[in-house]
């Protein structure tokens, strides 16, 4: 047996993360309730440290290590950077929320960081084995985080639903992977790609494996008809956890789709394109129409997430480099907007009051004109109104789809996004034109949360005015 020592350098951020999480896990045991903030600060500096390491490795170029189970490439590096940033914001937004609900515990940060490690593994996976293990590491952390608020019946129910359905989706994915392994005799994505490309394109066996893999990916993304868990989990979980679920894991799910469908099964593009078209149309329709009926803001944003997944798939299914770059741009933009949206709910809430119903935003303009403006920016951006960032991401995927001659699909997407604009604008109407209830609370959140959330919303506007750099970064990452 000839074994060469693997090159550890490309996996430096992962190793740093793992070491720090274990350190935080142990240190947290010795901290008193009052010095718990040390755990928070350490978690944040871990994310920043990993960010620095990933950025310093960006120039290295594509490299395979650990017997080709790990890949380092620009796409992975860019996604990892945004995963760290998103999680950094989640931890920052969540701090006061967790404090007020007696959930300010080390476990939240430890599980959150383990989730980040899982996302990193998933983003850099180059073997079916690492994809599956990274996914499980991420999912297991998320199930536990949803259940963390044990006294809440809603949270427990959400966690149970998420766990059972998630386990089923993992089983589906695993079955598809086992079929793929049976057909190609390899777990390595590169080898799977070469051997499937050489095979008969209409092989029923390959299609059989592909169906299961697409189902697994669609579940993790939350595409219709595999979206059932998403509104319940987003609604039932504590808002701080919803914030986590809705942000960075979307980037990891996008990476998983890219690794499996493009890196591994790129030769079957004709076959998965049809499946993704179906998912796209259903997601756009169900997400946008059902969202109209929601009175709970968390639920509404969950359905909005489903419709955004439809747009994301639109970029991927066009099957070109430009399309993949547009989809990646869309994923990153969605995460920035989603963080702002759920961040606003955290901002408005305080102990004993969740502020997660649209009613709670009534007359926000009178109480806090500044944050009403911030929410307006976020809602307009999600609806795709120019010049906000959300418009450019929609434009990019639509251009990509037009490049692949999918005119009818683009028409469907545009029609549904116009329908979708209704429920975003309703939030704006409620904030600006409805009278506030007597005794409605004013914004009383901490200074750091207010400043960073404002910066988050202003970034949506600022990047919307100059969208070139972020899009260029995505194009360069996939070139």
């Amino acid at each position, binding site marked *: 047996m000839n074994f060469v020592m693997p090159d550890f350098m490309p996996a430096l951020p992962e190793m740093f993360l793992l070491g720090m999480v274990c350190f935080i896990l142990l240190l947290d045991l010795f901290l008193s309730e009052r010095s718990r903030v040390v755990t928070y600060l350490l978690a944040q500096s871990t994310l920043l440290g990993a960010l620095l390491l990933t950025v310093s490795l960006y120039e290295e170029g594509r490299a395979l290590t650990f017997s080709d189970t790990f890949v380092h490439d620009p796409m992975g590096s860019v996604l990892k950077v945004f995963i760290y940033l998103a999680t950094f914001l989640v931890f920052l937004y969540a701090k006061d929320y967790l404090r007020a609900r007696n959930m300010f515990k080390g476990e939240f940060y430890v599980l959150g960081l383990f989730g980040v490690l899982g996302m990193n593994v998933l983003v850099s996976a180059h073997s079916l*084995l690492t994809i599956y293990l990274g996914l499980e590491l991420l999912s297991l952390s998320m199930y536990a985080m949803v259940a963390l608020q044990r006294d809440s019946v809603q949270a427990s129910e959400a966690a149970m639903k998420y766990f059972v359905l998630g386990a089923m989706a993992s089983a589906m994915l695993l079955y598809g992977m086992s079929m793929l392994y049976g057909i190609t005799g390899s777990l390595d994505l590169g080898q799977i790609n070469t051997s499937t490309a050489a095979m008969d394109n209409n092989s029923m066996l390959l299609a059989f494996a592909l169906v299961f893999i697409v189902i697994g990916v669609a579940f993790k993304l939350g595409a219709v008809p595999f979206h059932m868990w998403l509104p319940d989990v987003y609604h039932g979980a504590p808002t701080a956890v919803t914030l986590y679920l809705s942000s960075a894991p979307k980037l990891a799910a996008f990476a998983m789709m890219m690794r499996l469908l493009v890196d591994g099964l790129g030769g079957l593009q004709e076959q998965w394109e049809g499946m993704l078209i179906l998912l796209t149309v259903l997601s756009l329709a169900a997400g946008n129409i059902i969202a109209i009926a929601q009175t709970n803001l968390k639920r509404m944003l969950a359905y909005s997430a489903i419709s955004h997944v439809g747009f994301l798939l639109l970029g991927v299914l066009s099957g070109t480099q430009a399309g993949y770059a547009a989809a990646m741009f869309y994923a990153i933009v969605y995460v920035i907007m989603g963080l702002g949206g759920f961040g606003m709910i955290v901002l408005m809430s305080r102990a004993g009051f969740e502020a997660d119903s649209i009613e709670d935003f009534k007359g926000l303009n009178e109480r806090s004109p500044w944050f009403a403006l911030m929410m307006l920016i976020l809602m307009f951006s999600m609806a795709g109104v120019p010049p906000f960032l959300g418009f450019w991401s929609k434009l990019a995927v639509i251009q990509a789809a037009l490049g692949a001659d999918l005119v009818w699909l683009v028409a469907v997407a545009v029609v549904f996004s116009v329908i979708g604009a209704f429920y975003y604008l309703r939030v704006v109407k409620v904030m600006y034109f409805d009278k506030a209830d007597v005794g409605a609370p004013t914004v009383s959140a901490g200074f750091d949360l207010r400043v960073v959330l404002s910066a988050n919303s202003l970034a949506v506007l600022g990047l919307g005015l100059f969208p070139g750099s972020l899009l260029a970064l995505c194009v360069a990452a996939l070139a």
Partner: protein
Amino acid sequence: MTFEQILFYAFAAILVFAAGMVITVRNAVHAALFMVLAFFTSAALWLLLEAEFLAITLVLVYVGAVMVLFLFVVMMLDLNTAPMREGFARYLPVGIVVALLVIAVMAMAVGQRHFGLEQMPVPVPHGADYSNTRELGLLLYTTYVYPFEIAAVILLVAIVAAIALTLRQRGGTKTQNIAEQVAVRRDDRVRLVQMDAEQRK
């Protein structure tokens, strides 16, 4: 039919029977015991495939540890299965159609045509001195060291999650304080009393 084939079909038949019983018997304890039977027979199938290490691990870990623990949990719980059976008849037709459809597709994909002996010839059997465990160990700690480490991290997350979800400090529980028990002195527990001897009546 060779002896090996007879063994295979016998064990496979018991496995399918046991697996079916796991989901159909009413008593949860019986279901757990059928699960043990299913594990045993699949371990036997693995032995036929020359995967001795996996077969023994399956018996030791799943039957020996996991299922015994599971049996304890099942016996502790007061399961009321009536609500679970609600709507069984209503969903049955849909369930049957979906199950038959999946079975039909699977039968078309997984079978002689694609995974028969022509596509996947029988591997050369290894000699008696071939150590399955050693080969697995060599692979796990070299080629697959990265996935192996991630699996370890997943187990760590499972521990953290389990403790975070179940450990709860409550007043009034009768938990043992080991340190206090060890540090106990005779004077804390035993009181010597001086009494006068009683008169015999």
